[in-house]
């Protein structure tokens, strides 16, 4: 229920005398929608001051990914509204916000995973290293090899640990012979901090590992393709604190070579791992700034309420 509080609270803020029933119903509705917005609340936000432009600084030095005026629709549902955000290499950007605020949707725009949803429609431009990812000449398959993704739930393939990591290099022809492939698999597992634990059982099924190990296997699988960007959609939400700590350390190391975008519900995690934080609220990007600034001195009232725990 924690994630549902913000909307509730927010309505109370706008309408202190609101009756119980009007406060209750949107909460009930929004609980059934995770990645999609609740229309009636959306309209209220539009009427409020939250509709104004993003505060803080959406730009950064040497941007690698530039998303300009992104709108996403699921059917008639306007899931993301006019989001502009730049992401540079060698930094971790955390996307935070209450459930259903569009952060995962935005993340999935960056590697065009929304393509596989029939009703989804994306407008605006996203460039990766200066190249428009929506241009006809760019194959989404090639794009996804450059922009890796780690999911909320560990999803190793029902294959051996070795084959899980070797999957990407094999389909992209990254290794010329078995020795090279071995090398890629070992390096990837090593960098994902998993090699020590699985060195002697590379032929065991990947599904037999613990949850935290499975997630690191998925990270190894992603970096084996040698992407430029890694997207992480709440990578630690299904893990215990120890496994979480390992993954966070890993993100720290990986940020030296990759641009990392992480969606998280944990403010502590965002504070620990990210350089910049973007706060989403009901499909709008409210504020983007350096992590310190967001957590100590946010500019927007909504951001402040969220990070201080008054909502969410």
């Amino acid at each position, binding site marked *: 229920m924690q994630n549902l509080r913000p909307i509730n609270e927010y309505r109370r803020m706008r309408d202190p005398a609101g009756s119980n029933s009007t406060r209750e119903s949107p909460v009930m509705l929004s609980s059934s929608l995770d990645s999609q917005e609740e229309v009636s609340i959306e309209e209220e936000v539009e009427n409020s001051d939250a509709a104004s432009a993003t505060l803080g600084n959406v730009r950064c030095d040497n941007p690698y990914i530039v998303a300009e005026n992104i709108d996403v629709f699921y059917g008639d549902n306007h899931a993301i509204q006019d989001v502009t955000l730049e992401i540079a290499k060698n930094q971790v950007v955390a996307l935070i916000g209450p459930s259903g605020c569009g952060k995962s949707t935005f993340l999935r725009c960056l590697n065009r995973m929304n393509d596989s949803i029939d009703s989804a429609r994306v407008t605006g431009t996203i460039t990766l290293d200066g190249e428009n990812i929506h241009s006809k000449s760019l194959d989404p398959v090639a794009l996804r090899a450059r922009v890796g993704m780690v999911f909320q739930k560990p999803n190793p393939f029902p294959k051996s640990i070795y084959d899980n990591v070797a*999957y990407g290099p094999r389909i992209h022809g990254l290794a010329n012979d078995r020795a090279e492939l071995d090398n890629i698999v070992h390096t990837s597992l090593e960098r994902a901090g998993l090699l020590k634990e699985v060195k002697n059982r590379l032929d065991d099924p990947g599904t037999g590992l613990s949850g935290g190990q499975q997630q690191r296997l998925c990270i190894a699988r992603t970096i084996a393709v040698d992407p430029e960007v890694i997207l992480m959609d709440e990578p630690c939400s299904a893990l215990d604190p120890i496994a979480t700590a390992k993954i966070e350390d890993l993100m720290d190391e990986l940020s030296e070579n990759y641009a990392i975008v992480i969606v998280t519900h944990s403010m502590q995690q965002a504070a620990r791992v990210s350089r910049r934080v973007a706060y989403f609220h009901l499909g709008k990007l409210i504020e983007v700034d350096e992590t310190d600034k967001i957590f100590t001195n946010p500019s927007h009232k909504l951001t402040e309420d969220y990070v201080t725990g008054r909502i969410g």
Partner: protein
Amino acid sequence: MQTTTLTLILIAIATGAFYFGRERSLLLASGQRKLASLHSLPGYYGYYTAIWALLPALAVLLIWLLIEPRIIVAMIVKALPDAQRALSSGELNLLVNNIRNYATGDIVAGDIEPFLRDAATQYQHLVAVSRHLLVTLSIGLATLGGVFAWRQITPEFRARNRVETVVGGLLIAASSIAILTTIGIVMSVLFEAIRFFREVPVTEFLFGLNWSPQTAIRADQVGSSGSFGAIPLFTGTLLITGIAMFVSVPVGIMTAIYLAEYSSTRIRSITKPVLEILAGIPTVVYGFFAALTVAPIVRRVGESMGFEVASDSALAAGLVMGIMIIPLVSSLSDDAINAVPRAMRDGALALGSTRSETMIKVLLPAALPGIVGGVLLAVSRAIGETMIVVMAAGLAANLTANPLEAVTTVTVQIVTLLVGDQEFDSAKTLAAFALGLMLFLITLGLNVLGLQVVRKYREEYD
């Protein structure tokens, strides 16, 4: 009094018992908490009383109706003159039938002799007495049962638990009907098969290469002595099933892949129901399609290429059977592919796999056990399929692997053996049971294997 009337009266008594039982519990409910002072809700006390009123009386009624005719007949036979009692059992049966007919006013075969008239009078008398006894007994029992239960009711009495026990018993009885019937069928097949194996050695049946079940009925008849080697039948079945699987497995799996991964929602919403309609076509329709359309085409095409094709070739029957099974294979494979978690698909796509790589390298291997299970179920369906092969496959038990020749299958032979007038104690008739037993064992084995594989697969992801 008719049995129906009696049953209705019993039900009326039970309804009354329900009412009185409920009323009594309501009367006994006391104190501030009223209903809460009762152990069960008032309705349960009513049901409890009604059960006691109805079940024992119904049980007596049922048993009575089962054994009454036998006892009456035994008593009549005992009273018959010695001459008649000495008759053989068959003639005695006829006589008793005559007596019964005379008593009920039907037409009687032969002359009416005095002893027959006496016996008929006695029969009428016995039936009347038995009816009176039955009515008194069951109504009395219903009333007694109701009163007994009614007197038991106290606020502490656990009526709900007892009612639930009875309901549980009813549910068990309902589920055992199907099981017991199946066991009965299997047993009868088994015992008849054993009778067959007394006449024809098991080894000859299992390993004999010659099937020609015609036997001489009379000792002086000119006819073959019959040979019961089942191998040609099973190879024929295998050949036709093989052709059917050769058609249905690739087509079915490719259909499933298309539906699960490539088709648009609109095409899927049309194709799926159409495939299900295909699965609903009666096999007899496929049968004449095979016999009248496909077989001539196969023959014409084959002969134009210089092959000798029998008009009832295994190929035609197998092809049509394969088409019949496509929906089964595709729908089970589609389910198996769709059961692979979406996360698996997303994971593969996010690594930059194309759709076909996702399908071939991730989804199909993950769905393979489910697909194999589905194919095994399809095989057992093909082996047991009767109508198509009866109409399209031949009757000649050729031992051949050539699909252009006529072969026959186990099911076809069972049908031929049992159609028409049969002597039940001849090896020819009994052979059908032996074949049925073999068929049952094979399909049972395949089904168990198939379900096992499917289940193992399910456990992996749930």
